[in-house]
């Protein structure tokens, strides 16, 4: 089987890269384990939220002064703005409706009611452009009875701290009560799966209309729409006040929906998505990678002109650590990491942890290095890259998306 490009990893960056290449007629195969950190997404994309503890208002401006080791420098600082625009287009082409701007962060609302800087936020989620001009004065915070993955007391307090008046209102419907008999059903994804019929949605809207009182906006957990935003739109149409969703603890319905939409678009463009498979090893010829093997296609190596490593960080097993070292497990390419394990972490769970900055080493073309020499046709994108702390900087999804598009461009340009 010969491809133009084989991408290892089917998360946000792998898909964005695959779509970008497939759109230009390339034959692309993605090898995807089926898991993704979008499972923990809050309905937003972040370009750059925070540098050295300082909140960023204008990401484009701040990116220029990031240290040279940051992956954005490998995208090319002068190209960030145009690539960011292409990402927005990629989302809208995939049917994902988001709003935001690369030169002015807005605020997303976390499950704990904290406002965090964001670049793009789903249109059905609560978004605040200006903390001095809230989109509503009084919120009816609708809490699903028996659903514990929205920390209601914290969310309400957080919203009040932002200046909203908040009425916490518990509600249920017959459909929800029936689900509650099995505790494992009270997860966001199973609620989203079951609350789809017109009748079920009508019963929820009836509750909103009865209980929301004099609030001027209804807020509820993001447990709707496993495939698209039509369930939300049905609910909004039947609710007599503006309705917004707020992110929950994992699983994230919004994140999984976005992945589904991106996958669907990629396949529509002719891409091949090998779901539930994992890359195991590669064969090199000099400074080129010639093929990879996967768990399911053990006796049929995947050959391609170009390869992309989009396997994610430790959490996605794109990086591994054992008692003594940090390594990249599939191809054994070079990593940037402290040799002394004592340096990987530090006391204080909320302190910056060095391991977050570890990842595969690349040249300025995002090409992976092996024993210090670039592999000509192997690029790394997304969370597997070294050089930034996605949690502290609020740039994880941005790095995934921008390096994905940049790598796709480089692959085409180097042809």
């Amino acid at each position, binding site marked *: 089987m010969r491809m133009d490009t084989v991408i290892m990893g089917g998360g946000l960056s792998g898909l964005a890269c695959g779509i970008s290449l497939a759109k230009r007629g390339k034959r692309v195969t993605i090898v995807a384990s089926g898991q993704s*950190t979008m499972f*923990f*997404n*809050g309905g937003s994309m972040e370009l750059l939220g925070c540098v050295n503890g300082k909140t960023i208002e204008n990401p484009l401006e701040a990116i220029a002064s990031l240290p040279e080791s940051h992956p954005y420098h490998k995208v090319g600082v002068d190209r960030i703005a145009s690539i960011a625009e292409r990402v927005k287009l990629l989302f809208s082409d995939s049917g994902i409706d988001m709003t935001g701007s690369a030169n002015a962060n807005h605020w997303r609302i*976390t*499950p*704990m009611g*904290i406002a*965090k800087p964001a670049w793009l936020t789903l249109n059905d989620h609560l978004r605040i452009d200006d903390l001095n001009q809230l989109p509503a004065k009084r919120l009816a915070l609708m809490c699903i*009875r*028996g659903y*514990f*993955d929205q*920390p*209601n*007391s*914290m969310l*309400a*307090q*957080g919203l009040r701290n932002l200046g909203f008046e908040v009425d916490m209102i518990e509600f249920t419907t017959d459909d929800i*009560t029936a689900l*509650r008999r099995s*505790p*494992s059903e*009270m997860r966001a994804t199973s609620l989203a799966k079951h609350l789809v019929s017109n009748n079920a949605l009508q019963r929820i809207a009836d509750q909103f209309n009865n209980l929301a009182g004099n609030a001027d906006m209804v807020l509820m957990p993001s447990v709707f729409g496993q495939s698209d935003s039509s369930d939300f739109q049905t609910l909004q149409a039947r609710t007599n006040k503006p309705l917004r969703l707020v*992110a929950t*603890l*994992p699983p*994230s319905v919004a994140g999984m929906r976005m992945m589904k939409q991106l996958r669907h678009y990629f396949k529509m463009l002719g891409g091949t998505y090998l779901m539930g498979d994992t890359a195991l090893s590669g064969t090199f010829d000099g400074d080129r990678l010639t093929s990879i093997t996967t768990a399911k296609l053990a006796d049929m190596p995947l050959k391609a002109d170009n390869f992309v490593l989009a396997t994610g*960080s*430790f*959490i996605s*097993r794109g990086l*591994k*650590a*054992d*008692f003594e070292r940090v390594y990249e497990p599939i191809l054994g390419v070079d990593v940037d990491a402290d040799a002394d*394990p*004592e340096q*990987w*972490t530090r*006391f*204080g*769970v*909320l302190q910056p*942890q060095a*391991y*977050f900055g570890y990842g595969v080493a690349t040249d300025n073309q995002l090409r992976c290095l092996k024993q210090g020499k670039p592999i000509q046709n192997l690029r790394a994108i997304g969370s597997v890259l070294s050089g930034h702390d*996605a*949690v*502290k900087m*609020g740039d*994880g999804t941005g790095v995934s998306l921008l390096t994905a598009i940049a790598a796709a461009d480089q692959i085409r340009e180097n042809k």
Partner: protein
Amino acid sequence: MVTSDIYKKEYDVIIVGGGATGAGAARDCALRGLSVLLVERNDYSTGATGRNHGLMHSGARYAVTDSESASECISENMILRRIARHCVEETDGLFITLPEDDLQYQQTFVEACKHAGIRADIIDPQEAHSIEPAVNPKLIGAVRVPDASIDPFRLTVANLLDARMHGAETLNYHEVEGLIINQNRVEGVKLLNKRNGEHVEVHSRVVVNAAGIWGQRIAQQAGVNISMFPARGALLIFGHRVNNMVINRCRKPANADILVPDDTVCVIGTTSDRIPIETVDDMRVTREEVDILLKEGVKIAPSLATTRIIRAYAGVRPLVASDDDPSGRSISRGIVCLDHAKRDGLEGLITITGGKMMTYRLMGEIATNAVCAKLGNTAPCVTANQPLPGSEPDAPDQRDATKRYSFGQRAAIGRHGSLAARIEKDNDIDNALVCECEGVTVGEIKYAVHQLHVHNLVNLRRRTRVGMGTCQGKLCSCRAASLMGEFNGNVKAAQEDLAAFLDERWKGMRPVAWGDTLREAQLTSMIYEGLCGLDMAVNMEGKEDVQ
């Protein structure tokens, strides 16, 4: 009784230390009709009680080297099976001989066990492998003994509950700052209420020092010297239960030679190092300790090499030098009870120390005998026969297949025995699960908060096992924190508590932060910082440890 009233009363006896020994002594004193106050500087069972294997020794481990301890163990072992059956899992244990060990030792071992009254059956190595498939298949010898697994948190709480049911008062987060001494007589304690900073004095006729390794400091406050030799032991908890029986090495006690199944996980330990008394509060586990534990653990059960380690922890055994040898050369693991009137001319103070978690009841009995001798109380000890609350003869059995228990109810009965009946289940939400790994319901959390002295998530973990299972509180800690915020109306405190809980968990994960443990850590950071922004809601600078 409200706390301020507790301060005003004068007691027959104040017990210092809320570990198993203190709790056992409080129960015994209360059952003999004494008025009792127990004070603990942190949460109950935060010292050596909560920092061991959770092994209910048969005594076999000590049979060759310390026959007195061995006899004590087997006798207490049989008692605990009766009085604390809801805290005990009757797993039995194996003592295995590996090719690197001397098979001759097995004979010495079996004879010593028989001498101490411990059942010890030599079985075929292959049979051992078939009844315990996790054991190293290269074993060349195996002996089956009546070891078992015990939950020390549950055991301590059951003793405290029974003490309270018999009139005792108990206070956690109350630190002894000094003793009230009047003309060579101890007449009470000076306390700091660590939750509000208040200083109070409470009077009693006798004070029992049951503070474990910290007992040396308590004695110093009375001007009395006890030479303790802190022995530190580190342990590792693995992410699932690979073994169903306790597995020991059949050789002279050494590092990391016991693997114990505890509920849904298993624990390997321990190392053993003498440490200076000044460092007993430093519970950090080192890389060297982890290395030893892993290397030795894999010899016992090879599958540990590929099992996720969920955390590392360390405890300090309070070993005591015998009075006729202050050099410390002859240190006993046995029980030491000192009447400071006889020893030091100081009336009203008794120290109970040494021993082991599983001989806590006997230690409580010995201390109570000493108290009663002073107070002229002649009531007999009944703690060996009277079941602890939760283990009454008619207590429900979680394994009873004829009952239609839900997962949460079954788990709660396992944890609380007959006391599970106190958990609310009238409301349809009370049965909802907060912690899926351990089956903890909303009702059980309410019960713990209202009746088991729970002030924070770490307390809650010790009482209910919330967050103790395979996922280590990844999501359930947030659910529980939000519920506690609702119960007490203080959301900010609930968030700080959640951050402190995660920090406490990180302390245990950090020494083993590689492989899947590092993945779990990254996942936690992504959820609580990346997704939720908890780091922006709380300020952890300068926070004291919440234990």
